[in-house]
């Protein structure tokens, strides 16, 4: 098979696989432009008269989710930024440096992520209530950190471990100092990993539901809770729900688009071959 043929075949395969993969989401996208009648039509309609009414209602109507987008953005943004700031240096230490209690602390961080949310809701609720932090941004972000921080740390650890040890050593021998070695030499190596981790920390926090609904209220009301405005007891407004889901997805896609440029082939020009592990 010649080169051209193979490339086309690959594209075709990828195209088919990924459209099947993304189909439910694309279907939801289609649904968001339908009238309620068309949504439940059988056979499912692909050709129909599109309407923007759902988006108008979701964005500007009585059940507008714009304030909730803002709420989500504050909680998720702060959580992501704080997590990455605290977790990245910690992950580096865990991956590369030697210090007493390293293995234990590593496992402890991993273990905290395993606390089942089911068992944590009540103590969190009571604790936040005691300090008056229920339905507050500070409280919510703090609780979100409990699952975002370990998650970020553990993702970054594996990326740090992939950095060739010799690179660091070279920098250290240059009398550059540990911090500069970290900041200027090691960190750029893990740009791809940083991007991926940021996306996922953001995503995890953005889609969180249980903590959001129990520990939030009127002030802190992320989009995941607000979507239930369209799932009322009497009926589910599918088209509007789909529109709301699309709107809720938008910020994450934007962040993904921005970050994925950094998931590129490694900058291995001049890098020492082999890689190393401590």
């Amino acid at each position, binding site marked *: 098979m010649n080169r051209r043929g193979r490339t086309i075949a690959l594209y075709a395969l990828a195209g088919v696989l990924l459209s099947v993969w993304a189909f439910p989401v694309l279907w939801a996208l289609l649904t968001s432009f339908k009238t309620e009648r068309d949504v439940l039509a059988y056979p499912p309609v692909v050709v129909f008269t599109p309407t923007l009414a759902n988006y108008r209602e979701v964005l500007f109507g009585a059940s507008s989710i714009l304030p909730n987008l803002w709420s989500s953005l504050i909680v998720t943004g702060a959580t992501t930024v704080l997590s990455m700031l605290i977790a990245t240096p910690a992950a580096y230490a865990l991956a590369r440096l030697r210090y007493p209690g390293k293995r234990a602390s590593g496992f402890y961080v991993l273990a905290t992520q395993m606390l089942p949310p089911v068992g944590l809701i009540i103590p969190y609720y009571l604790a936040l209530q005691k300090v008056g932090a229920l339905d507050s941004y500070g409280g919510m972000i703090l609780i979100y950190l409990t699952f975002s921080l370990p998650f970020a740390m553990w993702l970054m650890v594996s990326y740090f471990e992939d950095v060739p040890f010799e690179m660091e050593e070279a920098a250290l021998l240059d009398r550059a100092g540990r911090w500069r070695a970290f900041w200027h030499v090691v960190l750029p190596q893990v740009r791809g990993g940083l991007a991926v981790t940021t996306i996922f920390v953001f995503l995890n926090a953005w889609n969180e539901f249980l903590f959001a609904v129990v520990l939030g209220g009127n002030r802190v009301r992320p989009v995941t809770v607000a979507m239930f405005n369209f799932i009322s007891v009497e*009926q589910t407004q599918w088209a509007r729900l789909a529109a709301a889901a699309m709107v809720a997805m938008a910020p994450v896609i934007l962040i993904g688009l921005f970050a994925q440029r950094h998931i590129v082939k490694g900058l291995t020009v001049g890098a020492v071959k082999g890689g190393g592990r401590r």
Partner: protein
Amino acid sequence: MSDLEHSRRRNALKHAAALGALAVAGPLALPRAHAQAPADDLAPYRAAKINWRQAEGTEISVAVIPASYFDNLLSLLPQFEALTGIKVRAEKVPPGQIRQKAMLDLSSKTATYATHAADPMYYPLYVANNWVEPLDKYLNDATLTDRAWFAYDDIHKAWRDADSIDGKPYGIPYDGEVTVQVYRKDLYDAKGLKPADTYDQLLANAKALNDPANRVHALALRGFAGAGQNMYIYPSLLRGFGGEWFAKGSKELVVNSPEAVLALDWYVSALTQFAPPAVRNWNWPDIADAFSQGTLACYIDAHSSAAVITNPEKSKVVGKVAYARWPRGPNGKRVTSIWNWGFPINAALPDKAKRATWLFISWAAAAETQARTSWKFAGPAKRSGLNRVSSWKSGEFAQAMSGAGDNFIPAALQSLEQDTDVEWRPRVPQWPAIGEAMATSIQAALVGQKKSKEALDEAQARIAQVMKS
């Protein structure tokens, strides 16, 4: 100067100021002026001989579920604030979480929610824990309630009883529903059928109309596992077969009696023969959706589903709908549901907040508010689950519900007045666990995972354990 004159004067002054500001600030002032236009007449409320403003300045938080009947109420909150000076913050909690969130608040006495939309089956639990206030205290207090004006006895007796324990009210019903037969009169007429009067007739009708090849199924009942889902329909069947929840003369719960097995068998076979296969996961919005798409000939569920199936935006069967009461079971009884959403008062509140909450509750349950959220409501959704007999019998209600279909009000009203039974489900504090266990077992039988007797025996074992510990 009376209250009314005071407010009129204030309004006039505000108007003058607004006009003046208009001259200066131009379009910016316009929205403000509109907000103060005296479009809301609070006179019907002021007719009550109580001081609405006695808890002025208080702030209370109310939890409700997303539903049009609450949305309508919430849109009227500015009126309440104008009337009483009490600020109400409403929070819409998803229906799957509202009980938990309310209980978390009640049990930890955090007094976050002054009141919430309460599931009537939870009152035994609330009362056993002393989480809510007995409301007779408030009803009998002349400074808080004008009995003649409020007319507590005008509220449907079935719902009042559902919200009371041992004769004492703990919640005031706001909105409710009954389950009725809903059927396609055009399909029935075409085959010369009448709405079923007995269970057997229901099955016979279903047999005549069942046409899966043309995507028309004849019957649907809720299958989704849940205390408020399949355990909402099954109790009616159980009572229709003459079953009881408690063993004769004792407090022991028995769920696997011979009548219970019969009822469950009937449920399983009816759905297996005549319902769409997906019904085992369906809750009533799904049934209503299917009906409005024309794929169901008949279902038994809440009367308020009328709003969905007669909504021209969604439904293809507008104008073809009719209603009837539940058919009689083998023991000759028609048994419907007695669901209502009522408002209790959180016992952990300070006194002033409790009074403010009572004012809110009596405002919401007042005949005038019921009207304003129904036929007087400016939006498209007119409530059909009003709490007062007088409202149901009024001409305006009849007119508002005229698009619902044939025999809507008589079927629902008669069901409400004659076919209800307060002990329709066991009113014990352990209800949440019991409801869950039953729901799981019923669904296991519906999907054919277990035989009816086996499923109920399992539920019995589980419930016995719950009651014992």
